[in-house]
């Protein structure tokens, strides 16, 4: 039997279309590293701007007319939604198309969509942010929120891995973040001449990390799936449980609302049940090949 909810929905007044994007204008484009840039977007419609709010970890569907849509995490400050930051790596037709645009150009935006980092879980606890590569931008809104209410949290650590020193993101903000009370360790897979920082995967930083209380810690992880699995394993070695770990997953999001089927991972629609999951809810699905 179908629930009464759906009967009511079929009878109810028509819902507004989920499919119509809002127009946004590119205010600024900040080149970050090769193939990565941050697009600062603003709604052209005052009502749309006034009503838009997002939570750390959520994403928008950016729409380049004639090319298509792409799911992009929001990388800016949730308390300043008048300018929406999207840090984008060129990875397909839409993101490549965006590189052709310049400030003043318009595009479409649907969102925000998806689950968010559970900021309320962080209060009174140590927080470990473990990330790699292009996984830092989806955590950036959480960093802003943590630092804005710094006194509400215990020790804050950012462990950040990248392929090589030249592709580390948001370096110009790291000093600010450190001053505001975030300890930061960086590591790279491949060193270059002159790099005196860490070499090795980010799990090694977690293995060595001190000054956190495993029994009173929350870990947020965003990066390639295989990296996140091994971050979780290392976290278990350090005394965390799966219930203390949250990961942000990725699949082919298209409709962003669980109606097109593309982003399924077992029972989960990554777009609407995720992208942020508590690790125990998703872990068994991450090791099945081709799921």
């Amino acid at each position: 039997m179908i629930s009464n909810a759906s009967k009511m929905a079929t009878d109810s007044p028509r819902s507004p279309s989920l499919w119509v994007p809002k127009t946004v204008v590119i205010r600024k484009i900040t080149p970050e590293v090769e193939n990565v840039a941050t697009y600062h977007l603003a709604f052209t419609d005052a009502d749309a701007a006034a009503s838009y709010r997002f939570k750390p970890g959520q994403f928008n569907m950016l729409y380049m007319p004639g090319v298509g849509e792409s799911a992009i995490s929001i990388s800016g400050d949730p308390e300043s939604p008048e300018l929406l930051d999207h840090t984008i790596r060129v990875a397909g037709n839409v993101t490549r198309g965006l590189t052709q645009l310049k400030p003043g150009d318009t595009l479409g935006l649907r969102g925000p969509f998806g689950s968010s980092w559970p900021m309320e879980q962080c209060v009174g606890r140590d927080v470990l942010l473990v990330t790699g590569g292009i996984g830092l931008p989806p955590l950036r809104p959480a960093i802003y929120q943590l630092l804005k209410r710094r006194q509400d949290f215990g020790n804050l650590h950012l462990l950040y891995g990248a392929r090589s020193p030249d592709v580390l993101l948001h370096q110009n903000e790291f000093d600010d973040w450190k001053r505001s009370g975030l300890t930061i360790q960086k590591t790279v897979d491949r060193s270059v001449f002159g790099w005196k920082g860490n070499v090795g995967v980010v799990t090694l930083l977690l293995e060595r990390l001190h000054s956190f209380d495993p029994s009173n810690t929350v870990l947020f992880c965003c990066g390639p799936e295989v990296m996140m699995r091994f971050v979780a394993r290392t976290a278990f070695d350090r005394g965390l449980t799966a219930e203390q770990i949250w990961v942000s997953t990725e699949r082919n999001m298209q409709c962003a609302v669980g109606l097109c089927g593309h982003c399924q991972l077992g029972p989960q629609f990554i777009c609407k049940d995720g992208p942020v999951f508590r690790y125990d809810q998703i872990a068994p699905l991450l090791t099945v090949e081709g799921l």
Partner: protein
Amino acid sequence: MMAQEIQNVLQELRFSSGLSQEDLQKLASISELVEVPASTVIFSEGDAAADLFLLLGGRVELCMNVPAKGCLPVLTLGAGDLLGWSPALTSGEMTATATTIKDTSAVRFAADKLQRLCEQDHDVGYEVMRRIAIALSKRLVATRLQVLDVFADPMTEGKS
């Protein structure tokens, strides 16, 4: 005095925590605390295996010599890490060059003494070898992740 201090230090280290006081004492008796200033080469690739270190603080870079590219850093070690596994397992050569990047403190074991201790006392030998195996297995997994190149840019992959 020195031995007692080392024993206390070993008790706190990830590598040796959980060992009995008796075993810690045996290990302390064949080791010493060392301070190594930044930019010191601790050992070089090809050196005869001589010492094994447990790092207490600081940072050490391991690099491997690649012709025309110099000594390429492959791994950085920090507090709690094992440095120089070759001497514990073989009497051959060091497989990488270790250079301090920061002022570094460590517990140093003379490899021949450590091997002799493990031979003479298999109980402590088993514990030492098991812990070296765990440290190496973690380093192996980390190396696999490096090999997977998980951060590779999908657009430029295969082109470089």
